[in-house]
């Protein structure tokens, strides 16, 4: 009873705070939580005229899911999504760490600052411009690659039209664009190194490389663990924007991922229910994965996310 009264008092005292929360809560409920309720159309035969409630349930209930899993696209899109994600993780995760270790070793402060500024720059290029740049650079007839191959009198390959080159272009251009920016968080961790550690290591005769490996690297491991959890928990979440822009008929075999497939069958062919089913399958798998990875890392150490 007293605890209830205390809660009541707490709420009364905090009325102003709830007022501050109100706008964001309203938007959140309408545009984030209401669509979560809308996923039930994955189990219905959605008709625009009947609405979400009025549309009949599918017979059998999982019809939309089985239709996807029986289609030939399901294997391709799932495989492409996972492979692209793993490739991204294998390259995109260690690169910023290595870069941060390098930047931390630069002793000239002005060069260091200029270097960082330049490496952060590509982060602010929009996805549209980034893909536009890729098309220009990699165009065999009039691009950078054509010029470079021309120096050696070679014929440049048409990489944007190649299905086997697509994952590499996607991943390495991402590294090019975001490596610098992603290193900031590790640099922040490095800035908290206790200088006496370096002094002690110097007295013991450690080289700079040894200091980097035995002092700096262990120091950023907790941060790295969290970043890895975040990435692993997003394994099925390859961003739509860049892949969609890079897609063409010739690289579709490796570039069709779940997100782009959901868009196409949903908004282009108006199969709302199937599209939602595919999307739901993706989101649920991804969420379970996140919970799993988080649980495992929490068991192993104490650097869980939540």
């Amino acid at each position, binding site marked *: 009873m007293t605890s209830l009264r205390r809660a009541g008092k*707490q709420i009364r005292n*905090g*009325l*102003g*705070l709830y*007022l*501050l*929360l109100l*706008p964001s*809560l309203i*938007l959140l409920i*309408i*545009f*984030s*939580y*209401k*669509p979560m309720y*809308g*996923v039930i*159309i994955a189990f219905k035969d959605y008709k625009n005229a009947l609405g979400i409630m009025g549309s009949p349930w599918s017979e059998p209930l999982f019809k939309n899911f089985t239709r996807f899993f029986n289609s030939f696209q399901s294997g391709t899109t799932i495989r492409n999504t996972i492979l692209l994600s793993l490739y991204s993780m294998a390259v995109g995760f260690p690169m910023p760490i290595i870069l941060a270790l390098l930047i931390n*070793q*630069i002793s000239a402060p002005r*060069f260091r600052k200029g270097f960082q500024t330049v490496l*952060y*720059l*590509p982060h*602010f290029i*929009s*996805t*549209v*411009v980034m*893909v*536009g740049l890729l*098309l*220009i*650079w990699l165009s065999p007839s009039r691009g950078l690659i054509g*010029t470079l191959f*021309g120096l050696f009198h070679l014929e440049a390959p048409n990489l944007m039209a190649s299905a086997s080159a697509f994952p590499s272009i996607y991943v390495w251009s991402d590294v*090019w664009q975001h490596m*610098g920016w992603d290193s*900031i*968080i590790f640099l*922040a*961790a490095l800035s908290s190194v206790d200088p006496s550690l370096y002094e002690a290591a110097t007295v013991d*005769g450690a*080289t*700079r490389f040894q200091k980097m490996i035995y002092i700096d690297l262990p120091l950023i491991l907790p*941060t790295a663990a*969290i970043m890895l959890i975040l990435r692993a928990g997003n394994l099925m979440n390859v961003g739509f*924007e860049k892949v969609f822009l890079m897609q063409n008929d010739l690289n579709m075999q490796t570039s069709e991922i779940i997100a782009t497939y959901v*868009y196409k069958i*949903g*908004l282009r062919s108006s199969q*709302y229910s199937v*599209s*939602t089913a595919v*999307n739901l399958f993706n*989101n649920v798998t*991804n*969420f379970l994965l996140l919970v799993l990875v988080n649980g495992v890392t929490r068991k192993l150490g104490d650097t869980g996310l939540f």
Partner: protein
Amino acid sequence: MHRRKVRRQGRDVVFDIILYTICALLLLIILYPLYFIIIASFSDPSAVASGSVFLYPVGFTLDGYTALLQQPQVWVGYRNTIAYTLVGTLIGLAVNIPAAYALSRRDLFGRRFLMGLFVFTMFFNGGLIPTFLTVQEAGLYNSFWVMVLPFAVSAYNIIVARTFFETSLPRELLEAAQIDGCGNLRFFFTMALPLSKAILSVIALWTAVGQWNSYFNALIYLRSENLYPLQLIMRNILITNQNFAAQGTGEAAMIAMRRASLVRYSMIIVSTVPIMCVYPFIQKYFDQGVMIGAVKG
């Protein structure tokens, strides 16, 4: 003893040489491709096609820029993007900052639950079609507001701002104000906000850059071309129409194709240079933001 020291310094010199070589290579890899676009945008397109543009512009021309600026949809796109960025940033601040402050208060009843409501949306969502139907039902499809309102809440920004409020607003300040009879709202507007200019600018910059660069919402929710932001118009010029001029044959098609590629170089410069020029001056705010966010991950 002395010799050992020399050997160690020798190894460190080798280390420095390797370090600065890698740095130089990285600078080259980042800067040269961008520099290539700049010189190509000022060069005769046939010189670019023949591969002779390498270090400086060849056959200097401004044709790309004049052709680009004569396209009315580029101006429309610029106007729309500026409007979306300004309004979107204001709404983003108005929605996320107060929420972050409220959630930073330990005496807020139901704090963990409310925070959970926000964080959950970072890891799970209703998906494309249910969200699309909701937006449509709200009457926002193909309107100005769809670009700035429905997705203004950012759980990530709220977490970052909340961490800032938790760590940099002294608790004694609130206690003193409460003893003087200052209410929560008044404390937020007259004390907390003026002391939080750093986090306000960080969140404003993040939101603005995000708005400026986004195209997904426009692709899904906009149909009228006069509402299109610059990014969507650029998508047509840079990507979708990549091959439109190549369909014809002969001299005229060749010229049209080269002119189109010149327009593309100019388009990239015109759209990217503003942010690139402003960025070095505001870099410290961005760094600060990432650092604040890093405190709690």
